[in-house]
């Protein structure tokens, strides 16, 4: 009997999960007992972290896109169609073209959507680097025309993709204006709804100290209520307001439209998901990974990557009848560029908060290297390298043994989830 695995969404999580499953289940696929199908909206795959470089360093987006089909294991069937409905009870995914895909296992990797329309005036009054390279490029154009005044970097909703990115934007703006020789004519202000410059306290110590050193002013507990593009003012629910000449804002995010339309998400469209097994709550055949989940960890490519491992293991274990259950340990690892070719890493798990950090050139190089390794990593061929770097991020729940690579279902070293 053919077991049909359908992966919805061709971002980092969806692409990697499909490739890992194809490797893990290669014999079953060869024998016609399993199929892996990836449902993706577009023909191209964009490396989203590049939008920072496009916006603040003038990088060309061209070098950061690849043909999706070329990234996939030959055993994965790529269906380039938009999913419009997911019926978890009937085990069917429907596409815009009317195709109905039934499944035995489902992986939801539909990501997050940034919605500049979510705050009154925000769309007309601000620029952003969270809605694709085309819009990131508008920031590059705007800062090149900028001759001086007030630049405000703001977070207009939480959670959002890539938590360090607004801080990075502020650091990169400082660096850009300094290089242009007009830093003394530019006031940079950072508005955040959080109690500090970065949500995690120990990371915030580093960021606040650096912000102070380079003259970036922070205003905390600023939950954006509206923007007036004519008066060039931004207002908070708490009653504060600031003038701006250029507003760069992270728009509010929500789950994908297909999640909302299918009624399988919470009020914001995030899919309620078990934070260890990555199973959609209440189902034993549907998983959710990456930005699409409601799990309180960073919405980032690294998280989607690590959760892909967990899901690939859980599905392949079930297909092979091994009945082992695996859990993700909440590991995050978000690099933050702090200017002057230095970076820090925000690393944590469900049980270990981020630790003290010292910005370094080595971490900056590591961040840039991860970017270069991205395309190879998506194919699933660098898992031993990542396993060495991250340590045990996926653990056998029953036997409490960590797994280092997806190529072995037998645990190697004892540990805890």
């Amino acid at each position, binding site marked *: 009997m053919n077991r049909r695995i359908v992966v919805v969404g061709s971002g980092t999580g969806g692409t990697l999960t499909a490739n890992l499953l194809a490797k893990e289940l290669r014999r079953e696929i060869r024998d016609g007992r399993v199929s892996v199908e990836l449902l993706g909206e577009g023909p191209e795959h964009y490396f989203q972290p590049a939008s920072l470089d496009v916006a603040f360093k003038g990088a060309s987006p061209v070098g950061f896109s690849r043909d999706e089909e070329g990234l996939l294991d030959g055993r994965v069937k790529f269906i380039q169609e938009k999913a419009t409905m997911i019926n978890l009870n009937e085990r069917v995914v429907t596409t815009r073209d009317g195709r109905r895909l039934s499944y035995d296992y489902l992986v939801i990797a539909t990501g997050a959507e940034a919605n500049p329309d979510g705050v009154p005036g925000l769309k007309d009054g601000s620029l952003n680097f969270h809605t694709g390279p085309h819009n990131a490029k508008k920031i590059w154009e705007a800062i090149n025309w900028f001759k001086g005044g007030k630049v405000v970097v703001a977070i207009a909703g939480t959670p959002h993709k890539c938590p360090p990115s607004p801080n990075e934007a502020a650091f990169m703006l400082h660096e850009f204006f300094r290089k242009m020789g007009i830093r003394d004519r530019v006031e940079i202000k950072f508005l955040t709804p959080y*109690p500090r410059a970065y949500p995690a*306290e120990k990371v915030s110590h580093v960021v606040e100290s650096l912000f102070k050193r380079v003259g970036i002013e922070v205003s905390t507990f600023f*939950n954006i209520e509206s923007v007036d593009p004519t008066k060039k003012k931004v207002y908070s629910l*708490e*009653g504060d307001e600031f003038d701006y000449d250029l507003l760069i804002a992270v728009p509010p995010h929500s789950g994908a439209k297909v999640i909302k339309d299918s009624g399988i998400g919470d009020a914001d469209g995030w899919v309620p998901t078990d934070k260890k097994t990555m199973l959609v709550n209440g189902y034993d055949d549907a998983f959710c990974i990456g930005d699409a989940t409601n799990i309180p960890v960073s919405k980032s490519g690294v998280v989607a990557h690590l959760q892909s491992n967990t899901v690939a293991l859980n599905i392949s274990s079930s297909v092979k009848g091994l009945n082992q259950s695996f859990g993700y340990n909440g590991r995050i690892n978000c690099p933050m560029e702090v200017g002057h070719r230095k970076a820090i890493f925000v690393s944590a798990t469900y049980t270990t908060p981020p630790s003290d950090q010292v910005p370094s050139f080595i971490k900056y190089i590591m961040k840039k290297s991860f970017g270069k390794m991205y395309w190879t990593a998506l194919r699933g061929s660098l898992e031993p390298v990542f396993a060495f770097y991250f340590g045990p991020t996926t653990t056998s729940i029953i036997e409490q043994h960590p797994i280092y690579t997806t190529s072995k279902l037998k645990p190697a070293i004892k540990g805890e989830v």
Partner: protein
Amino acid sequence: MSTPQRKVIDSRGSFCPGPITDLFKAYRASNIGDILELWATDPAAKSDVTAWARKSRNEILEITDENGYIRLVVKIINKR
């Protein structure tokens, strides 16, 4: 004018910025006079919510240590 509502926000098990973010979401949907009751296991919630209430000029009615979690009760008296 609508009748003031009381809303319980259960953020137990969630760590910073989870509880304060959940409170912000409720604050966004609230009206003047509403009572927001946040339950949190993250000890940072105490200082974060207190600092937020001071900054936003809202009123903390109660902070109590319950069995394994903190209960923070805020009355919304200021909102744009």
